[in-house]
């Protein structure tokens, strides 16, 4: 094995199942056009709950995307993850023939914030409605945070290091860090990311306790971070899976290297302590830059966490100023998630996907539904902004107090 320090992690495949589209083609078209798909919640049993607006995945046919056995044996969050993993593997042109002789060189990492709430609710209803003998055995694995990692691993025959990051939103970025660490340790490829399915009655009721959840019933007004109208966040379902490979192995098999995972850092400042998240997020940015060997001025675009809670937005703007200095007020910042909502752990992985696509297209997607910015930030609004992008910074914070930052770079052999 080569020197671990020389084993760089690169993204070679992207698979998206998002409220604004399945597959990177549909996702990028809607994202760069700044289309908002936030809408009234329509899921059965959720219509009369106080959560009015969410980002539902509607352009997804589970029957066409995953085998029937997984429809019966796993939860919706796993259906999304399996479908996204397939899309990512296709995108990376990584097939069984590439790894059937070296299955221990390919691993799986997912992040999960809540597991399979819809499946779990159905089985718990059987428990209390009919009795314990009517609870199906697949409940033992389907609800579980690790379900998607396990099913993707078994289905694909990936026998390398497998893990699940059970965390809040920032876990999506931490999963990528975990994958990069596996690559340094000798793994050649990982299927990594997160997809969530929090829009079922039990899951929604659990979220109603979050004081940062938007109670607004107007889809265009419910999620407006960095404005004076900020009134909380809108949840979403879906997410993204990526194929991350050791760079030499990827190039050796002729894969298209789309971006390098150059640096990452995570900190923790406690649930709901948004003022303190300023320092935590700034430290995460500084740590990620240090690992990437990247000066603040090299950051060409920031994909913000953009919670939509005034204290949290203020802390994020402050963190950028603290960590990037004067560049923090000049660098273009965007938050495309205002058009689709926050898919918990899936949200930052969708942002990483958008960041890679933005670098490839030389176009910073806008922040839908946001117009009057009340912080000292160059937030990209209304329409996409052309820009030469070599380095992107992706930020994520979680409701439970995690802060995470990830630096992505275009591969050095990419022409401008």
């Amino acid at each position, binding site marked *: 094995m080569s020197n671990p320090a020389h084993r760089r992690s690169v993204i070679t495949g992207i698979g998206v199942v998002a409220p604004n589209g399945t597959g990177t083609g549909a996702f990028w078209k809607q994202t760069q056009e700044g289309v908002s798909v936030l809408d009234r919640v329509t899921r059965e049993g959720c219509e009369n709950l106080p959560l009015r607006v969410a980002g539902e995945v509607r352009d997804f046919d589970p029957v066409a995307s995953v085998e029937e056995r997984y429809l019966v044996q796993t939860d919706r969050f796993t259906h999304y993850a399996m479908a996204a993993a397939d899309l990512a593997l296709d995108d990376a042109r990584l097939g069984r023939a590439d790894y059937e002789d070296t299955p221990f060189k390919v691993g799986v990492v997912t992040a999960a914030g809540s597991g399979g709430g819809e499946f779990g609710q159905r089985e718990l209803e059987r428990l209390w409605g009919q009795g314990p*003998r009517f609870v199906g055995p697949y409940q033992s694995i389907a609800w579980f945070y690790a379900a998607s990692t396990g099913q993707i691993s078994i289905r694909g025959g990936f026998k390398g290091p497998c893990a699940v990051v059970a965390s809040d939103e920032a876990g999506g970025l931490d999963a990528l860090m975990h994958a990069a660490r596996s690559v340094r340790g000798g793994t050649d490829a990982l299927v990594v990311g997160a997809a969530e399915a929090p829009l079922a009655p039990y899951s929604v009721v659990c979220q109603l306790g979050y004081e940062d959840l938007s109670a607004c019933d107007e889809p265009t007004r419910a999620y407006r971070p960095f404005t004076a109208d900020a009134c909380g966040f809108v949840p979403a379902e879906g997410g993204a899976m990526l194929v991350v490979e050791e760079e030499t192995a990827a190039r050796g098999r002729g894969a298209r290297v789309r971006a390098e995972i150059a640096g990452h850092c995570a900190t923790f400042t406690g649930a709901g302590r948004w003022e303190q998240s300023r320092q935590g997020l700034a430290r995460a940015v500084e740590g990620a830059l240090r690992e990437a060997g990247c000066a603040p001025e090299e950051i060409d675009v920031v994909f913000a966490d953009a919670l939509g809670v005034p204290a949290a937005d203020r802390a994020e703007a402050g963190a950028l100023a603290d960590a990037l200095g004067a560049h923090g007020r000049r660098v273009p910042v965007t938050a495309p998630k205002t058009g689709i909502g926050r898919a918990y752990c899936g949200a930052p992985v969708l942002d990483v996907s958008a960041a890679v696509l933005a670098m490839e297209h030389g176009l910073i997607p806008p922040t839908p539904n946001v117009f009057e910015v009340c912080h000292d930030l160059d937030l990209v609004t209304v329409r996409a902004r052309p820009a030469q992008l070599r380095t992107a910074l992706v930020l994520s914070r979680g409701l439970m107090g995690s802060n995470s930052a990830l630096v992505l770079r275009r591969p050095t052999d990419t022409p401008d």
Partner: protein
Amino acid sequence: MPDRLTYEELAALMKSGAGLTVDASEMESSPGSAFEEYGLDSLGLLGIVAALENRYGRPLPADADRCKTPGEFLDLVNTTLTGV
């Protein structure tokens, strides 16, 4: 006394409980093929045992969920049900 469990019923239980589409006549013609070959794992068989116990209102032997093949499983279930 309930009727004997048939291969058709077993195939239907594999479909509803584990999402597997299995040809009953194929299973009947090679009863010694392992459940594994049809994609049924141990959790899937456990679910079928529970469904049958609920249907018949009586327990199956403790080792029912350890049967390896459809033939073995049907023999055990039908022996229990008919007392033969």
